[in-house]
């Protein structure tokens, strides 16, 4: 049973998960006969929230026939720099080194926090475990969120926010709406399991994080809202997020967001709706983080310095 079910029925999230499951099955069939031990999908696939217009960003993890995978899954223009490529865990694990550029960091963080296996679920799980081990190798302490991974996650979130401005006006309104919703859910869904480490001893940290990061980010949030006695705020947060997925899945409204300029967005009712839904998602998450114990203390202790 998904942790989300305790908060109500969310029509759009349920439909998106069904689309994701069907799509994964379809892609797995397409990869039959290809030498590819583990292929993972990222982004909305990893969140199990496929909507109209979702990209198909994939990574081949470890050895295999990358050209064959590309022939079967395709390659989305504009994402090839980061996705639709072959990666290996040792390279992804060079965390903070000179060669750990934005591309390597993006691949690592999204693989860890927002990915799902198309083929090779065992290899996918092992890749996540190895990445966690790389972060936790020298830092395993009782009842302490792991700083190394926390800092990399915060760095990634801030990178996303800075790159949002750096990308200029292209699809500004859609990117703005996503930053306030799906990207916020990605960040908070990565953050809350780290803060949950406050409740466990050193030996349990890797197992806890692996179990959480194999779940969709929304389920991680649902678990936190329930654990910290914030069911009402959680229900409103997921209701807003559900409506946002409905907006994204509506070709007309999504198309409008894609076409709006920054100036037009200020007076556009569709953008205003998306902005309101984003505010409601962020309000719910901020209330969880700042008005519930011990999260309030943990945020103060770990999130700024």
């Amino acid at each position, binding site marked *: 049973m998904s942790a989300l079910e305790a908060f*109500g029925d969310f029509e759009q999230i349920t439909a998106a998960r069904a689309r994701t499951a069907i799509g994964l099955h379809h892609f797995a069939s397409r990869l039959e006969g290809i030498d590819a031990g583990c292929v993972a999908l990222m982004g909305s696939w990893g969140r199990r929230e496929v909507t109209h217009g979702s990209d198909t960003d994939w990574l081949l993890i470890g050895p295999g026939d990358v050209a064959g995978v590309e022939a079967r899954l395709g390659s989305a223009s504009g994402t090839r720099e980061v996705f639709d490529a072959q990666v290996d865990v040792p390279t992804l694990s060079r965390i903070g080194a000179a060669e750990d550029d934005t591309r390597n960091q993006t691949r690592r963080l999204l693989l860890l926090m927002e990915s799902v296996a198309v083929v090779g679920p065992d290899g996918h799980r092992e890749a996540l475990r190895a990445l966690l081990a790389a972060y936790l190798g*020298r*830092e*395993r*302490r*009782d*009842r302490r969120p792991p700083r190394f991974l926390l800092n990399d996650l915060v760095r990634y979130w801030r990178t996303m926010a800075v790159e949002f401005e750096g990308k200029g006006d292209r699809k500004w309104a859609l990117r703005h709406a996503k930053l306030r919703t799906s990207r916020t859910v990605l960040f908070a869904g990565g953050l809350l399991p780290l803060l949950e480490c*406050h*409740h466990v*001893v*050193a*030996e349990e940290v890797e197992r806890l994080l692996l179990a959480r990061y194999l779940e969709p980010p929304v389920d991680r949030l649902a678990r936190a809202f329930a*654990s*910290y*006695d*914030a069911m*009402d*705020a959680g*229900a*409103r*947060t997921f*209701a807003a997020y559900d409506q946002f997925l409905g907006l994204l899945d509506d070709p007309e409204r999504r198309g409008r967001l894609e076409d709006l300029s920054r100036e037009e967005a*200020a*007076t*556009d*009712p569709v*953008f*205003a*709706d998306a902005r*309101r839904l984003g*505010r*409601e998602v962020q*309000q*719910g998450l*901020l*209330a*969880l983080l*700042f*008005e*519930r*114990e*011990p999260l*309030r*203390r943990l945020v103060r202790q770990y999130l700024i310095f």
Partner: protein
Amino acid sequence: MTSPRRASRQAAFPGLAFDELRATSRPFSRALLTTHHPLGASTGYMAAAREDWAGLVEAACRVSTFAVELSALAEDELPGLLAFLAGRPRLPFHYLSVHAPTKHRRLPEDKLVARLAELPPHVDAVVAHPDLIADPAAWVPLGRRLVLENMDPRKATGQRVEDLEGLYDVLPEAGFCLDIAHAAAVDDSMALAHELLDAFGARLRQVHLSSLRAGRSSHVPLYRKDELRFAGVLRRCPDVPWILEAPPPPR
């Protein structure tokens, strides 16, 4: 730094005592009010500056620059508010609601809704009194921006779950504004406030927060006894703006 090997040899210490406070955190209601975010002011209590919208915004900013409710409680205040907002003033608020007229109503319902629909897109909510909604279908054009407020006992309807359910059937996108003082005036056990949240909590967009003068419907600064009485209900609303319908308590 503790190595994994060392950690595994020694017994772990228990979790902090504060962890036990997960379900009962913030036991003091005063902390609820003073630390809640976002908090905002309703301009409805600023009678001296009525219709001076720039002055009202300035006064509201002294309470909070995060949230505000601009109240056009009399219908003849609405054109001035529309003109003020059409001028795109540099408002700092993250959440902006407008209280729809409740007094001196002259426009037919559909015409009033048409005027409210002219409010610019950055107005997040249009708060309306359900006892003044004669034809719910007329309010459909406001969509998700329409927010229905529960009423005090002196109104003909709109106090209880069953009064509002029928409106939401016709207006499924509409939100809910919990006026906690109104709910407490109908049922001082606060059970009604919880029932309203049980029924409409997923629609909650904001809270109206104040006390009511005994035996009357006028809003006054939150009494200390009400801070305690309201705490359990407010704890269920940590994520939405709380709009003060009277000046902040002086304490």
